[in-house]
């Protein structure tokens, strides 16, 4: 119990001290609000502009969640195909890596030109960023089934399909969720980056566009408010995915099991 309080109170205390110093510095040195607004002003902006920003947040969130869902489904399927055929894995995996290491900022303009529906264009960008951790993690997971269990399945005459369903997929599930948690944050980043690129082209989209717009208008407190909402969204996505994976893997993986036994 003591540890739990420490775990909650200590970071909160650090946050409070940080905000207080920030507020003090802004007021004490008379820093212009368009350079660095004090936290109180950001809070006020969040209060007044909040409802308007929430609409934009909803757009960004839709893109993020749709991209994450597509990454989970397509990434999972790609991994399944990879695990069934070593030749396909060897042939295609390098291209998945290439897609991953190419900066999304660089390809986003092309995608926005090629895909006419803005929502779909942004979705594609976010998906490209999000799908790789799921594919690489799940592929490793599908291939790391216990060798002795594989032998046992063979001994009892299991088909390739049965090995996949009853052994490889369950083994890969913790890996899949580890990938999904990373992808959750990346999908949001991908969506924001794509919105920035689209926004510089004049297309009004989600929260990233509002950040851009606030920057142009020197409405810096509103910029910070939008930034705050983005961070909160990212944290929320991570926490929800973490909760889901914990729920589903309760009996499974030692990383989950041992923590529960504490």
């Amino acid at each position: 119990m003591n540890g739990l309080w420490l775990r909650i109170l200590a970071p909160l205390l650090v946050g409070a001290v940080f905000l207080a110093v920030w507020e003090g510095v802004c007021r004490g040195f008379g820093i212009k609000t368009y350079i660095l607004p004090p936290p109180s002003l950001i809070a006020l902006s969040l209060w007044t502009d909040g409802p308007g920003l929430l609409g934009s947040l909803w757009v960004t969130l839709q893109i993020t969640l749709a991209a994450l869902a597509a990454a989970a489904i397509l990434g999972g399927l790609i991994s399944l195909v990879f695990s069934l055929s070593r030749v396909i894995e060897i042939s295609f995996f390098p291209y998945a890596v290439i897609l991953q290491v190419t900066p999304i900022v660089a390809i986003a303009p092309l995608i926005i030109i090629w895909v006419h529906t803005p929502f779909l264009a942004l979705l594609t960008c976010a998906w490209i960023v999000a799908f790789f951790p799921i594919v690489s993690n799940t592929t490793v997971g599908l291939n790391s089934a216990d060798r002795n269990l594989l032998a046992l399945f063979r001994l009892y005459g299991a088909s390739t399909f049965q090995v996949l369903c009853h052994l490889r997929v369950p083994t890969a599930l913790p890996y899949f969720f580890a990938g999904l948690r990373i992808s959750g944050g990346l999908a949001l980043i991908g969506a924001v980056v794509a919105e920035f690129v689209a926004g510089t082209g004049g297309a009004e989209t989600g929260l990233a566009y509002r950040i851009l717009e606030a920057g142009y208008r020197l409405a810096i407190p509103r910029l910070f408010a939008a930034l705050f909402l983005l961070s909160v969204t990212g944290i929320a996505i991570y926490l929800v995915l973490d909760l889901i994976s914990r729920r589903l893997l309760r009996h499974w993986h030692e990383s989950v099991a041992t923590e529960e036994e504490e």
Partner: protein
Amino acid sequence: MKSSFLGTPDGANAIDTAPLPIVELRAVGKRFASGVVALAGIDLTVGRGEFLSILGPSGCGKSTLLRIVAGLAPPSTGMCQLTMGGITGGRVAAGRIGFVFQDPTLMPWSTVTGNVLLPFRIAGRVGPRERERAATAIRAVGLDGFATAYPHQLSGGMRMRVSIARALVTDPDLLLLDEPFAALDEITRLALNDDLLRLWERHRPTILFVTHSVFESVYLSTRIAVMTARPGRIVADLPVDLPHPRTRETRSSPDYAAMCDSVSATLGRAMGGAP
């Protein structure tokens, strides 16, 4: 008439007078792709109802031998012939062989019952009859009340019991155990030795037991095949004439001590005086 692990024991009739040995290895050799010769010229027959220990140092090819018998690896030379259900040679029907590895090799996402039901699940039939058999197997290894537990909630010894229950559930003709107790602490190991012995004395299954412990092999088996390494060969085939039922008192008897000495000496000689 076939003996049953889990059904009612049929006493003295349990030992069938089958004419053919259940396992017959002739001039079996195994050479890996790396060029390492794991086994050379192995001749071995296992009769129905025997408890045969394969005793040897680490890396002598004992496990490879067991995998060849199970059909998990083909021999490079020679032949391995099994007689099961009155049929000699050919593909062994699924579930005729039970295998226990050194690690419990359980599925962490499945309960004890789920793990024990695995052979039936693969065979595509999990009905009330199969569930009843699984429950009986779980009882037989002393895990009453743990049917719905997950592996991570069990101790190492209990996990090994689950693994044994899974090997028993199909009522196999042949039980292969690959150093099943090597990773357990001494106390658990002795308890599981006794349990395995009781199981064999009651139902007289055919057991092929790989171990590197002289004491374990003498205490448990009716026969010991001593192996040496590089290449793996059987250098001695010793019957163990200690009377059944064997109990903890057996372990302090002079006959037991003499047998252990004799097996140790054989092993020592075979390894060039450096066991």
